[in-house]
C-alpha cells in the first residue's frame, strides 16, 4: 500500500507540489490529472525520490521510502518516466532485461529461469516479442514506449508509477497498454499511480482520480466525483461538456469549441419540406440535433435530412435496415446525414404545419394510418405482428433544446397523439377499445440548437403548448384524411 502524506517538494527551493496527501490501496489504480504545469510529473518525481521533498513523507507498506535500500525499493516500486532520447542503442531484449536488475545480486549474478520467464511475459504483454533482437533506435516512439513499459513490468513490483504511459501511442495501443496494466491491477493486485493527459482515458481506467491545480489537490475521488463539468472547466480553463460512456459508468469529457464560423443559418420553415408520391423529405442547409426512433440513424445525433418513405402494405420488413439504406443511397441521400422512417400511408397526405411562439417556432409533420391501431393498456392481451409504423411524427424546433427538453417533447407529443386518436374514436379492432396509437409509431424531435434556450418542453411551457396543440391538430387532420382515403365512415 502506498501512502503519501502532506508531501511538498520540487526543484531546489521552488515548491511545485504542495501538501499533497492520498493513499492508494492494493489493486487500486489512481489517475493524476491536471493542466500543463500543474505539477503532475513533479509529484511523481517527488514521490519516487528523484526530486527533493521539503515536507511530508511517502510510505510503502508502512515503511518510509528513504528507509528502503535502492534495490529493495526497485523491487517494491517500478517507475516509468516520460520517454527521453538516448545516445546508445540497446536491443529490445537487453532493455527489458534491465528491469530484472533489482532481482540480481552478487558479482557473477546469473540469469535465472524466472528472470527469463518474466522478461518474455512482459514483452508478450506489450506486443514487442517480435522486436526482441532489434535495436531500440529502429523502433517508433510508440514501440519504444511499450518497451519501457515492459521494462517496468519486468521489475515485478507491487507498485507501478507511470508518467503519461499512453504518450506516442495510437488508440489501439493505448487500449492494449491500459488493458494490460488494468488487468495486472485486478489479477495481481498491483497498485498503480499514473499521470494522465487525457481525462477520458483516466476516467475510463482509474478507480479514483486526483485533480491537481497549481501543485495542490483540487479534487480527489471516483471519476464521477472528479470529472464534472464545472470542476474541469474551472481547473483546465476550457469549455467542456460531460457525457456518459456508452459501456462503463465513467463520465467522459468533450471539448466545446469557441470557434464561430460565419454561416447563414436560416430558420426552419415549411419550405424545407418536399412531398412527392413516395417520400416526405425534410432538408436543411445545416445539421439539426436529432432524437428519433427511426429505422435509419435512430437515437441521437446531428442530421440534416429526414426521409419518410411510403412502402407497400406487403413490404417485407425482414431486411428493413439494409433495404432502406440501399434505397436512401440510391436516391442520393447521405448515409451519415439522413434519418429514415417508413410509412404505409400516402405521403401526399402528410400534414405539415408551422406554429410560432415567443421562443421561436415549431414545424410539425404527421403521417397517420390507423390500420394497426392498438390500445397500449391492453396490448398484453393480444398478440400483434410487427408492421410498418403508421403514425410518424416529426417535431422540428427553431431553438436550443436542453437534453431533458427532448424527452419532454416526446412525452408531450405522444400524449397529444393519443388524445387525437381518442377524439377521432380510433378503435383497437382486437379489443374493441379506444386505441392509443399504432403498433409501430415513430417520433422524431429535432432542434436547430440556435436562438432561444429552451430548458423544458412540458405542457406548462410555451413550446410544450405548441407541440401539444400542433401534434393534436396535425394528427386529427391526418387521421381524417386517412379515413377518407380508405372510405371509412367516421
Amino acid at each position, binding site marked *: 500500500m502506498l501512502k503519501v502524506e502532506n508531501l511538498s517538494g520540487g526543484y531546489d527551493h521552488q515548491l511545485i507540489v504542495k501538501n499533497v496527501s492520498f493513499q492508494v490501496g492494493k489493486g487500486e489504480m489512481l489517475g493524476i490529472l491536471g493542466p500543463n504545469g500543474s505539477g503532475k510529473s513533479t509529484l511523481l*518525481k517527488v514521490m*519516487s*525520490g*528523484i526530486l527533493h521533498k521539503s515536507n511530508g513523507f511517502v510510505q510503502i507498506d508502512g515503511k518510509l521510502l528513504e528507509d528502503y*535500500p*535502492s*534495490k*529493495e*525499493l*526497485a*523491487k517494491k516500486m*517500478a*517507475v*516509468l*518516466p516520460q520517454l*527521453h*532520447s*538516448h*545516445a*546508445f*542503442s*540497446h*536491443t529490445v531484449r*537487453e*532493455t527489458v532485461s*534491465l*528491469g530484472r*536488475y*533489482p532481482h*540480481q545480486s552478487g*558479482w557473477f*549474478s546469473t540469469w535465472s529461469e524466472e528472470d527469463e520467464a518474466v522478461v518474455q511475459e512482459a514483452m508478450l504483454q506489450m506486443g514487442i516479442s517480435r522486436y526482441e533482437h532489434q535495436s531500440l533506435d529502429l523502433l517508433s516512439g510508440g514501440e519504444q514506449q511499450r518497451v519501457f513499459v515492459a*521494462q517496468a513490468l519486468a*521489475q515485478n513490483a507491487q507498485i507501478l508509477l507511470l508518467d503519461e504511459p499512453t504518450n506516442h501511442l495510437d488508440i489501439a495501443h493505448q487500449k492494449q497498454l491500459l488493458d494490460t496494466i488494468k488487468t495486472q491491477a485486478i489479477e495481481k493486485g498491483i497498485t498503480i499511480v499514473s499521470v494522465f493527459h487525457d481525462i477520458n482515458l483516466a476516467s475510463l481506467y482509474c478507480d479514483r482520480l486526483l485533480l491537481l491545480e497549481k501543485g495542490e489537490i483540487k479534487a480527489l475521488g471516483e471519476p464521477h466525483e472528479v470529472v464534472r463539468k464545472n470542476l474541469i472547466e474551472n481547473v483546465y480553463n476550457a469549455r467542456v461538456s460531460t457525457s456518459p460512456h456508452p459501456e462503463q459508468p465513467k463520465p467522459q469529457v468533450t471539448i466545446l469549441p469557441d470557434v464561430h464560423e460565419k454561416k447563414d443559418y436560416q430558420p426552419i420553415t415549411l419550405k424545407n419540406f418536399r412531398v412527392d408520391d413516395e417520400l416526405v423529405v425534410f432538408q436543411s442547409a445545416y445539421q439539426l440535433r436529432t432524437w428519433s426512433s427511426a429505422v435509419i440513424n435512430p437515437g441521437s445525433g446531428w442530421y440534416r435530412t429526414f426521409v419518410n418513405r411510403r412502402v407497400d402494405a406487403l413490404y417485407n420488413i425482414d431486411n428493413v435496415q439494409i433495404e432502406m439504406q440501399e434505397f436512401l443511397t440510391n436516391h442520393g441521400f447521405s448515409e451519415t446525414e439522413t434519418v429514415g422512417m417508413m410509412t404505409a400511408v400516402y405521403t401526399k397526405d402528410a400534414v405539415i404545419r408551422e406554429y410560432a411562439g415567443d421562443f421561436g417556432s415549431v414545424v410539425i409533420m404527421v403521417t397517420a394510418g390507423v390500420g394497426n391501431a392498438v390500445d397500449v393498456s391492453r396490448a398484453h392481451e393480444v398478440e400483434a405482428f410487427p408492421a410498418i409504423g403508421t403514425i410518424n411524427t416529426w417535431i422540428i424546433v427553431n431553438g436550443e433544446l436542453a437534453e431533458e427538453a427532448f424527452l419532454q417533447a416526446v412525452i408531450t407529443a405522444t400524449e397529444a397523439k393519443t388524445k387525437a386518436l381518442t377524439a377521432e374514436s380510433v378503435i383497437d379492432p382486437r379489443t374493441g377499445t379506444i386505441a392509443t396509437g399504432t403498433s409501430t409509431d415513430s417520433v422524431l424531435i429535432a432542434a436547430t440548437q440556435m436562438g432561444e434556450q429552451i430548458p423544458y418542453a412540458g405542457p406548462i411551457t410555451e413550446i410544450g403548448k405548441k407541440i401539444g396543440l400542433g401534434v393534436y391538430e396535425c394528427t386529427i387532420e391526418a387521421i381524417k384524411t386517412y379515413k377518407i382515403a380508405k372510405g371509412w365512415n367516421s
Partner: protein
Amino acid sequence: MSKTTIGYILSVVTLIVAIWLGLSIGSVKVPISTLWNIGADGIATNIFWKIRMPRVILAGLVGASLAISGAAFQALLKNPLADPYTLGVSSGASVGAVATLFFSISVPFLGMYTLPIFSMIGAFGTMLLVILFAKLVDRSMKMETLILTGIIFSSFLGSVISLMIALTGEELRQIISWLLGSVSMRGWSYIQMALPFIIIGTFLLWLNRRELNAMLFGEERAKHLGVDVKKRKMMILIGGSMLTGSAVAVSGTIGFVGLVVPHMTRLLFGSDNRHVLPLSFINGASLLIICDLVSRTIIAPTELPIGIITAFIGAPVFAFIFFKQRKKGGV
C-alpha cells in the same frame, strides 16, 4: 554462436597476433621462439626481455586502461564523445607530470617514480575537484554539469601546462615528447608501478557493468531500476581515474584510444556494457600495441610519438561519431 562469443574469440585472436607482431618486428628482428628458447642468442634475448616485452606489455596495459575507462565514462555520461579526457582527469595527470619536470621535484625515497606518482596525484586531485565543483553547481550532479566542469578544468589545466612549457628552457623537448605520449624505454619498473592500479580500476569498472547499462537510460531511470546512483557513479569515476591516471603516468598523453575502441566494439558487437567493457579492454590493448609498432617502424630508425598515430586514427573517428550523432539528433 552468438555475436558476443564471436566478439571475444576475434578480440583475443587479434590481441595474440598483435603481441606476436609487437614482439618480433623492430629494428632488430627477434624470432618469437626467443620466448621459450632459453639458449637463444644473447643479444636477441636481451632485446626481447629487456626492451620489447616490457614495451608491448606496457602498450597493452595503457591501451586497455584507456579503452575500458573510455567505455565506462561514455556510458556514465551518456555521451559517445566522452573520453577519459573529457572529465579533465588526464589534464590533471599531465599537470602533475609537467610540474614535476618544471620544478625538478624529486622526493628522495620515490626516486625515479616521482614523475608517475605525481601525475597520478594530479589525476586524482583533478577528479576530486571536478566532482566537488559539479556538486556545488548542482547537488544531484547531473551529467551535463559534470561534463561542463570537466571542460572548464581541462581548459584551465591546459593553460597551466602551456605556461610551464613557455617558461621552460632546455627541458622543453622532454616535456613535449612526454605530452605526445610514448611507451618506449619505460622498462619493467613502470609496469610494476602501474599494474596494481590498473587491476583495481578495471575491477571497479567491471563490478558496475550492469549499472552502466542502466545509466545509459539516464540517472533517473537507473535509480528507478534500483541502482544506487551516487555510490555507483563514484565507484566508476574513481575506477576510471585510477586507470587514466596510471596510464598517463607511465606513457604520457595518448588521446583517442578511449574513444575509438569502445565505439568500434559497440558497432561490431552491440552496446551491452557487460561485454563492451571486457571487449574494449582487450581491443584497447591490441590497438595500442599495433599503434606502437607502427610508430617505431614507419619511419625507422626515427621513432614517432605514439600519440600522433592514435590521433591520426582517432580524430576522423571522433568526427564521424560527432557527425552521426548530430544527424541522429541525439546527444
